[in-house]
């Protein structure tokens, strides 16, 4: 293990290097580009023995790794925002063809208007494509989760693609200390992919070709079953990761200071770090508040949310994206999970950090105060309140 000061994008690239990926498909987009640039440096320096394939679009990038994964290769690609949207068709192909791709996604706002800052709309909009989705809070978590995602995606019980996301700039371009496992540690955790491929050169095999009503639903049900096996499989993957590296990140819904809490905020991504400090401050004032980080968004951690709901009186959910015509995605998913539970706390949704607006300690404090005062519905669009921050540009 070496401690290095790395950006989130460098952490993605180091994880792909440590996973000994065999095929990388590369197409640039801000703020992802430095991931594939760093991988190009690794390949050029002989530190990564991968086929590095430059393509003409994100659609092609994903097609390349879908095909390579079908032949048994361990693959990696990365994208962001508009590039992910262009991949949408192939996202379905990847999961339906059971390609255990791991993809880094830098969460960036969707145009228009054009914006390169953080927003989760790009990945939230892909929640129905059959991909496992992790949201990371720190560059350490980015690196560790990419390695874990390979074990999870390639597990015979799962065999689905996974995306590991990081907030634009707040992680992608933020440098901070990261513990980088040695190759020996990474190899011990992540052996080479099982070479039994679906497609074998020289043997005529069909994958994803025409299937009528007689069998189509069975294929879909298999994907659904694989998704259902993710929580249990991930628990053993993370246990193994801790055994090898001494670190884990607390499963699908890590909790912070929820013991005897009556009010809990659910966050995704980097807002979680800032919220931890706010929880400490409010606890010091005697308020019984806690925090839950939605680390795994697909499959949605229904059981973990229900367990949390049984412990507290109020849950607030902060979404960094907006779903037109409905509320925030994490808020509606949380509501759906709790509806089937006998213990249903009060639930409120907040929209904050949209299009890169800062989620400050003050904003998080206002969310907790609104929850505690049972007036959360008054402050749903956090960003539209005056903040008095500096003017950029």
């Amino acid at each position, binding site marked *: 293990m070496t401690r290095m000061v790395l950006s989130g994008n460098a952490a993605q690239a180091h994880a792909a290097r440590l996973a000994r990926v065999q095929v990388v498909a590369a197409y640039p987009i801000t703020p992802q580009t430095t991931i594939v640039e760093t991988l190009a440096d690794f390949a050029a320096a002989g530190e990564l023995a991968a086929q590095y394939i430059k393509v003409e679009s994100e659609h092609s990038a994903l097609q390349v790794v879908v095909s390579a994964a079908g032949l048994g290769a361990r693959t990696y690609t990365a994208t962001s925002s508009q590039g992910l949207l262009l991949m949408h068709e192939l996202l379905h192909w990847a999961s339906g063809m059971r390609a255990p791709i791991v993809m880094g996604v830098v969460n960036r706002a969707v145009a228009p208007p054009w914006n390169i800052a953080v927003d989760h709309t790009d990945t939230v909009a892909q929640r129905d494509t059959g991909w496992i989705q992790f949201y990371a809070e720190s560059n350490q978590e980015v690196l560790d989760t990419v390695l874990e995602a390979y074990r999870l995606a390639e597990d015979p019980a799962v065999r689905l693609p996974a995306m590991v996301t990081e907030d634009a700039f707040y992680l992608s371009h933020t440098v901070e200390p990261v513990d980088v496992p040695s190759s020996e540690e990474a190899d011990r955790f992540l052996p080479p992919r099982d070479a039994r491929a679906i497609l074998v050169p020289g043997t005529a095999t069909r994958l994803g070709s025409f299937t009528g009503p007689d069998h189509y639903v069975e294929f879909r049900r298999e994907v659904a079953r694989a998704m259902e096996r993710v929580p249990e499989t991930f628990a053993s993957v993370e246990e193994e990761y801790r055994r090898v590296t001494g670190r884990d990140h607390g499963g699908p819904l890590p909790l912070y200071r929820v013991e005897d809490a009556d009010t809990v905020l659910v966050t995704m991504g980097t807002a979680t770090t800032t919220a931890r400090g706010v929880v400490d401050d409010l606890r010091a004032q005697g308020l019984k508040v806690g925090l839950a980080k939605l680390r795994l968004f697909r499959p949605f951690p229904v059981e973990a949310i229900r367990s949390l709901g049984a412990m507290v009186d109020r849950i607030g959910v902060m979404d960094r994206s907006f779903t037109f015509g409905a509320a925030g995605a994490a808020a509606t998913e949380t509501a759906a999970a709790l509806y089937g539970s006998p213990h249903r706390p009060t639930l409120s949704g907040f929209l904050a950090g949209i299009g890169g607006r800062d989620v400050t300690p003050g904003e998080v404090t206002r969310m907790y105060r609104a929850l505690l005062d049972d007036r959360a519905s008054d402050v749903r669009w956090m960003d539209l309140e005056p903040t008095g921050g500096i*003017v950029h540009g």
Partner: protein
Amino acid sequence: MDRTERTMIEIRFHGRGGQGAVVASELLAQAAFLDGKESQSFPFFGVERRGAPVTAFARIDDRPIRLRTSIDAPGVVVVLDPGLLRTTPVTEGIRSGGLLLVNTAADPASLPAPAGVRRAAVDATRIAVAHGLGSVTTPIVNTAVLGALAAATGVVGRTALEAAVDRFVPAFHAENRAAVDDGFAAVRFAPADAPAPAPVVPVPAALPPWPEGPVASIPSRALRTAAWRTLTPVVHTERCTRCNFCWKFCPDDAIGFDAEGYPVIRLDYCKGCGICATECPPKTIEMVAVAEAPA
């Protein structure tokens, strides 16, 4: 509720795309880490354009850093281009007792700052040019500025800075180390009792207030992009033939006309690309450094 006041030092860099502000912030974080500190650095890109204002942030602490937000109350503000003092509210939110460090040949006592802020200057441009870093027109001043920052604040050691240069700057290691040393030696302070001019009211760089209603478009000229400009076009009308070429070639509607048909540059909008000056047949348009242009 203010976690930043205990041991954390928050530093905000203001520069222009291409000057190295982002790298300066990263190098500082790397050097602080080599000093055994926890550190964090990240940039904010308003627009991805060379010459446009860039902000970068660095936090240094003895403990793990638990803030992932922009820095709006910095203890230290570092300005890599003195032209930004005229266009960008660089000292916005700076803490009382904080430090403003500017790359300038000018007397630090002349630097505008709120009361209670210490002021320092370093001629990093001269140092960068002397060591052949960047070009004469676009010197890369970041390592010289970091040397001055180390001397002025002690937030990071000079040895750690030099080690960070060796490990993370891709080229010109000896020159950059020398720039760190020269910057360290050349920092100048304004006397504590010297009165500071008030910060100038900057050209607004932000959007106008959001118009109520179902608005999907904003007139381009409502975007006040003057802060992107490092060179200002000055029209010498005595030689102008009123051919309108400048207007035709301006890529972004920054040129209008006066009552007699002479071109008038919209200075709150012009980004200073210089295409008008290049295309003008009788060469009546001169590009002048912002700091020297008539107000």
